[in-house]
């Protein structure tokens, strides 16, 4: 293994999800299966009142940590940002403003009351819990399935071909441009481009502008290269088949059965 790879690794830290997906223990599982499980779980999370979604989240976390071999600490690190957003939005849902003292908690501020009612507490916590659980479903997909496999699944779903081609190309170009961006940033640093905030913005703007120019130039060269290999508006690549095993299908069936029963029970009780 060359050190060269590591540098790239470092550069693409921005795309942490992608790296976990590439080395995931679930990389060899059928991508259709992973995508379906993730999306159906998401929908079930949204349909639930809270309890079932927690069960789903526990299973999703379990799958990604145990089978996907993602480090617990790193997983938590990835969860932190969406959770912060959910908490912030949760506060908006939780707190209301009223002229009178009402609700279960109230704080007087500037002749008004910040109140939390039983109802708002219930809604806020329900929505936040559901959102957090949904995030784990999304993460199950992102941390186990590389983007190009997802695009292949979308092709089977009969998305317009032009979108599929755009996706393949965009996905490839993201890495090309990210590398150029990091190289430019490093070069700007060696010339003190980030010496203060003002100059940082100057550098940032300059890099973004030149990156755009280079993106155009590269598009042109890439097109020539594609034509040279006989491209005529049909983007096809060799893909490896990863058929789902009976065991995997069985497990997924069992999982959905349990969740749907739970959901039914939850609906009846609440």
């Amino acid at each position, binding site marked *: 293994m060359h050190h060269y790879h590591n540098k790239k690794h470092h550069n693409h830290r921005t795309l942490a999800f992608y790296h976990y997906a590439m080395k995931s223990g679930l990389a060899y599982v059928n991508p259709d299966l992973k995508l379906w499980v993730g999306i159906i779980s998401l929908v079930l999370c949204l349909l639930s009142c809270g309890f079932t979604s927690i069960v789903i989240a526990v299973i999703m976390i379990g799958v990604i940590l145990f089978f996907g071999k993602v480090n617990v600490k790193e997983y938590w690190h990835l969860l932190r940002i969406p959770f912060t957003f959910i908490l912030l939005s949760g506060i908006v849902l939780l707190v209301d403003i009223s002229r009178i003292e009402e609700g279960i908690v109230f704080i007087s501020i500037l002749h008004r009351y910040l109140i939390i009612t039983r109802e708002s507490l219930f809604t806020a916590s329900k929505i936040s819990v559901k959102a957090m659980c949904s995030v784990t479903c999304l993460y199950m997909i992102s941390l186990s399935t590389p983007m190009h496999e997802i695009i292949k699944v979308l092709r089977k779903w009969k998305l317009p071909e032009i979108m599929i081609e755009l996706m393949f190309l965009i996905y490839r170009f993201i890495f090309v441009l990210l590398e150029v961006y990091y190289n430019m940033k490093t070069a700007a640093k060696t010339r003190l481009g980030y010496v203060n905030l003002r100059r940082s913005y100057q550098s940032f703007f300059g890099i973004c502008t030149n990156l755009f120019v280079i993106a155009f130039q590269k598009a042109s*060269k890439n097109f020539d290269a594609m034509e040279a*290999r006989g491209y005529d508006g049909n983007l096809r690549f060799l893909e490896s088949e990863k058929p789902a095993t009976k065991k995997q299908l069985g497990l997924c069936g069992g999982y959905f059965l349990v969740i749907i029963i739970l959901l039914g029970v939850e609906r009846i009780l609440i």
Partner: protein
Amino acid sequence: MRGVFSSDNYLAWRRKDINMSMTKHVLKVEHAYFSYEEGRYALHDINVSINKGEKIAVIGSNGAGKSTFFLTLNGVVKLLEGELYFHGEKLDYSRNHLVKLRKSVGMVFQNPDDQIIASTVEGEISFGLFNIGMKTKEVRTKVNGVMQEMNLTEYAKRPPHFLSGGEKKRVTIADVVVMEPEIILFDEPMASLDCKNTALFREQIDKLHKRGVTLLISTHDMNFVWEWAERVIVFADGEIVADDIPTVIFENDEIISRASLQKPLLFESEKYRNKV
């Protein structure tokens, strides 16, 4: 050392040239003109015929027209004037002709990142085969074969941006080799390869030459030209200013200065040795 055989080579090449004018060339360009912007020709009255199995070095300064010339041979750049003949047949730039031409004339670009478009190595290598309408099963066999030959099998499922510069280069060569072209055009293939990868590349082109593939390599490395090439095409300002065997080219000081070239070290030292 090749210098010793140069006069033999020269005669052989001249003979071949004469024969060829009677028989078929693989590729022949006649009175070709091309221009990216009005008033300035990127290619100006180009006349070249390329014969089977030749080892041709294409040299000249940056912007002298080498890359445009290559793109012309592949049909990517459409000539403004002049003709391109492929096995004696005039190219009419119809889809059929272009497919046939591009199947037979492969091009490896200078910067691998400008060529790679797929998200896995095997996907990348398969791209050209799918374009010429090959079926998946056959594609799989061919791609696997080339990956094995070029030591890329372990990278098959890896995304290309994980690879080092030398490995990426190998992938882009595999891209073209898999299509089994008759002619391969290499645009400055060794520009940023290290010594080890350069040696690997040299092995690769020797292998291709033995299989009868015609090779055109554009380069600034005169030592490589001296050691490898059987024939040298010199570009300057969009024109071909010389097209001959290496000894003749490097002995002609006028050409050397007109095309801003440098003489190969070995050429100089061999000459020196011969004098002593």
